[in-house]
């Protein structure tokens, strides 16, 4: 009796010791994830960094009223939301590209060629957006490679402004993110294809199925669950485009169409020093995103009996 008590006491002591060992990391996690949430109260103040929170004036719902009540601000918000949705929907609409890429690449029999394709198409995923912009600049600026080529071939006299214009901005952004992400996005599908039971293919071939039937009836269905999960996640992230791509590509000409929510928050918050209104906006964005994630997760549980988070 005495002995079991002392064992359980040393056990408990050890439990506390283990906790103390991870405590520094828990503090870090708290400091950089939970603690910043207190900053949401800035959206109810007219926050001036120089004055600090205590010196700033409490304004209640002023910023929310401006966001939705003031007609100029409302027009701005609608423009930014339109950009956000356009960019997100274009990317959701083309989210089956990596799937097709994987299915068709799987049909190539030469291992060497396949490997080469995979190696080179995945590479752009590992460079930063700054570098992508640098490449875009080298190729598509008014003095870039494409314009020199077009002028040398006498196709056009004046340089075409690919980068500093507002033509087809959303489409261009989609093309760049596809260029960067297509090969990488297909890797997960290729891994899933590698896991498909080969006897399925053989049985179907014996039954007289040709290449296209195999692709359509065996490979494709094997990939759909993965596709579904990724699709749900991108729906949940519809407001989160990130800002890096749009920040590096933005200029005075395309700002109208390139400013997505994340970039707008940066431009008004940090560049424009509108801390409070930017916080109000990003708080709303965070709340919508988290609720979307839960909805999507609920939907996935209902439809597939599996949660995605």
């Amino acid at each position, binding site marked *: 009796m005495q002995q079991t008590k002392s064992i359980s006491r040393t056990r408990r002591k050890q439990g506390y*010791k283990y906790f103390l060992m991870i405590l520094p990391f828990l503090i870090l996690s708290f400091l*950089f994830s939970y603690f910043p949430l207190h900053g*949401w109260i800035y959206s109810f103040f007219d926050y001036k960094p120089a004055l600090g929170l205590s010196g700033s004036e409490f304004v209640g719902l002023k910023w929310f009223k401006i966001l939705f009540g003031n007609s100029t601000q409302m027009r701005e918000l609608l423009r930014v939301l339109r950009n956000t949705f356009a960019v997100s929907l274009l990317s959701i609409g083309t989210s089956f590209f990596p799937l097709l890429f994987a299915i068709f690449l799987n049909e190539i029999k030469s291992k060497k060629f396949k490997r080469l394709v995979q190696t*080179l198409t995945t590479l752009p995923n*590992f460079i*930063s957006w700054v570098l992508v912009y640098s490449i875009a600049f080298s190729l598509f600026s008014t003095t870039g490679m494409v314009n020199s080529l077009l002028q040398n071939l006498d196709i056009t006299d004046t340089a075409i402004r690919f980068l500093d214009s507002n033509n087809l901005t959303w489409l261009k952004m989609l093309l760049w993110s596809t260029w960067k992400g297509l090969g990488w996005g297909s890797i997960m599908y290729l891994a899933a294809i590698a896991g498909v039971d080969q006897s399925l293919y053989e049985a179907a071939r014996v039954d007289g199925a040709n290449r296209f039937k195999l692709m359509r009836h065996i490979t494709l269905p094997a990939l759909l669950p993965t596709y579904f999960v990724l699709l749900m996640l991108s729906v949940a992230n519809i407001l989160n485009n990130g800002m890096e791509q749009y920040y590096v590509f933005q200029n005075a000409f395309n700002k109208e169409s390139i400013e997505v929510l994340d970039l707008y928050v940066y431009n008004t918050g*940090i560049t424009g020093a509108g801390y409070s209104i930017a916080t109000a906006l990003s708080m709303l964005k965070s709340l919508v995103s988290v609720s979307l994630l839960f909805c999507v997760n609920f939907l996935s549980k209902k439809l597939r009996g599996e949660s995605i988070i």
Partner: protein
Amino acid sequence: MSHSQMKSPKASRIYDHSMKDRLFKIFNYTVFTILTLICAYPFYYLIINTISANNLSAGGSINFLPRGIHFQNYIDVFNLSGLSTAAMISVARTVIGAICTVLASAFLGFMFTQQKMWKRQFWYRLVVATMYFNAGLIPMFITMKNLQLTNSFWVYIIPAIVQPFNIILVKTYVESIPTSLQEAAEIDGAGILKVFYKIILPACKPILATIAIFSAVGQWNSFQDTLIYVSKQKLWSLQYLLYSYLNQAESLATLVKNSGSAAMANAATQQTATSIRMTVSVVVVLPILCVYPIFQRYFVKGIMIGSVKG
């Protein structure tokens, strides 16, 4: 013989079929060749232009093969003020950041498998939950400012130490290691840290390598944290420096032109806005190209990191 085969209806169907098959193959190889060229050519274009005569590359006439090969550009950009500092900052944040994340993920992933820990499940969930929300740009900025991390090198390292998804990866991996290993070591009198150091770290090598390589690439490519938290030029990373060069390459070219090393340069090695921009780009991308063959092996595990984080 093939002629007679063609006549029978069955054989003609086979012929038809193989014809379709061949067309498909041609189509497939063509499409993938084009896609691959589109992905690879820009890198090739940058590289051949940085080693070609600068007056030719500024005129946009180097498209397929380098001409007038020289390496003066690389010598000149390293003399640009700021580039070597930025390179040092980038290397330092990549190495230190990756090491910290790997060790922290390994340790936490392992500790969260220890049933004895006080309120283990609660702490674990608390850490994992941070994957699904963030406070937003301005609150983060103000927090960093209050923690005195803005304009400090440590803003690159400290916030990135605890990565929930990496912890999940390690935890799952540790759970697949037989617990008898740990128990045997404990009977021999090893403490938890010794178990971690002697048994868990070596056993988790594959997963830790994946985490190391992906966090290193992430650190190297990171641009946004410099943009938001750092204004001191001494702390700029290479990515940020490249971005600033992209916006002011003209004035940079004059800067280099007037500096001593390039004073007697001829037109072929005279720095231009184009040559500086491209050379710095290659300097930024070269480390990625070098480690790329190694980390291809870790792709499948890595994509899970990427998809959940993104």
